[in-house]
């Protein structure tokens, strides 16, 4: 059993615990749409991880002809995105630039994944699903009044250099490529650290109920994007950040529902 298997097993167990807590939360809350959608979304992700683990045990060292486990990830992104934009969430009327940004960012990601893996069909579908999740997140954050034009500019200015740097790695080699890769990893982990710090600050302050939930979703979005751009131990480290972000999503959701 290597480090990857251990972390996958841990992730699966954490997801199963989150599923059980979410189901308990369903009965504790009165028809909370967010909780029900979150519970079903995490079920999708847990099945995805279970599939990955099972495949690793049953067919070690063989590549999947079709990564069926990704269907679980699609379910997670779609259901979480649907819960963010479903009523009673407020939808701001002009959100064209946010959607355009999400399409551009996702398209860049799809191009990078295809460049790395060569799996056109699955990468395009995953990219479309992730684009929907990013768009839903930005639209709901804007609807809640947290995403001003200045903050949106900051988000764009942080995200686009990452895909640019990753894209550059295709055109250079040797020590320049190693340096660029390292810079990307530092950038991605710095993003995670910043979001974690902000999330801890908002939770400690405890005044803005749904802001912490949005930040947890943002942390998950950033860590997932970064995970897809990582390999080896960096990938595993990002998987751990994803794991933490899902637990934080449950925690913030619980606080939000309790406050309601």
């Amino acid at each position: 059993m290597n480090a990857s298997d251990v972390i996958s097993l841990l992730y699966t167990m954490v997801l199963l615990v989150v599923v059980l807590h979410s189901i308990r939360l369903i009965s504790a809350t009165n028809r909370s749409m967010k909780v029900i959608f979150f519970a079903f979304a995490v079920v999708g992700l847990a099945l995805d991880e279970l599939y990955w683990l099972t495949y690793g045990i049953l067919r070690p060292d063989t590549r999947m002809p079709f990564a069926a486990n990704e269907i679980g990830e699609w379910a997670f992104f779609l259901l979480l995105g649907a819960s963010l934009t479903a009523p009673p969430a407020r939808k701001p009327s002009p959100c064209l630039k946010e959607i355009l940004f999400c399409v551009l960012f996702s398209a860049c990601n799809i191009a990078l994944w295809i460049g790395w893996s060569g799996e056109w069909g699955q990468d395009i579908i995953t990219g479309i699903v992730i684009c929907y999740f990013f768009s839903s997140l930005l639209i709901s954050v804007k609807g809640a009044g947290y995403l001003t034009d200045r903050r949106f500019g900051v988000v764009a200015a942080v995200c686009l250099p990452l895909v640019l740097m990753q894209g550059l790695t295709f055109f250079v080699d040797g020590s320049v490529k190693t340096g660029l890769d390292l810079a990307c990893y530092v950038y991605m982990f710095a993003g995670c650290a910043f979001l974690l710090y902000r999330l801890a600050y908002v939770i400690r302050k405890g005044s803005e109920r749904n802001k912490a939930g949005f930040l947890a979703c943002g942390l998950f979005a950033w860590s997932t994007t970064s995970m897809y751009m990582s390999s080896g131990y960096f990938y595993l480290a990002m998987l751990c950040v994803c794991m933490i972000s899902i637990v934080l999503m449950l925690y913030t959701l619980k606080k939000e529902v309790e406050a309601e």
Partner: protein
Amino acid sequence: MIFAENILLCIAIPLIVSLLFVRGEVRRYLTAFLVGMGVCLLSAYISGFLNLSSGMGENDTAIFLSPIVEELMKLLPLLYFLFLFQPGERMLTMFAVAIGAGFATFENCCYILTSGAERFSYVMIRGMAVGVMHIVTIYALAVWLIIARNLKAFSFPAVVGGVSISMIFHALYNLLVSEPGPSSVVGYLMPIVTAWGLYFLYRKIAAAFDL
């Protein structure tokens, strides 16, 4: 090789004739059951086509692609029924269960005709596992559609997200039973255990939604 169309006709004709003599819910159940059997045949056609066009081989197609095709094909009549008739919760779950039962019955018939039915224990396992699995996935999907409709969150992503959960569950089952040994035992138990879990989950949700 078996002639699945002939088997379908053979099983369907008595059921179609019986439709003339029954009314109400029984007729609806029978119709949905027949739809489920037809959907199973269509799924087999599509999976066969994908097998030939992708060159993945029969085994890999059954493990990786068939769950996607089968769950999508089962969803289509359910959505058609939902949009056309706007049924109540009870009617929708009955329709879903009938589609799943029809699908599983026809699949089991074809399987038994191909592999033989000499070993009673294996036939029972097949019936308890695949039979329950098809019902569990579509029933869970129907419950999800009811929840989304009640929460006024019925949207394209919500439907696709729900069917994706059915697909990954089905894919996990197919993967587990594809290898002999403890994994297949876990796979055969999975639908029954999930059916129990789903029953209790549904009771909780039904209480919350006054279903």
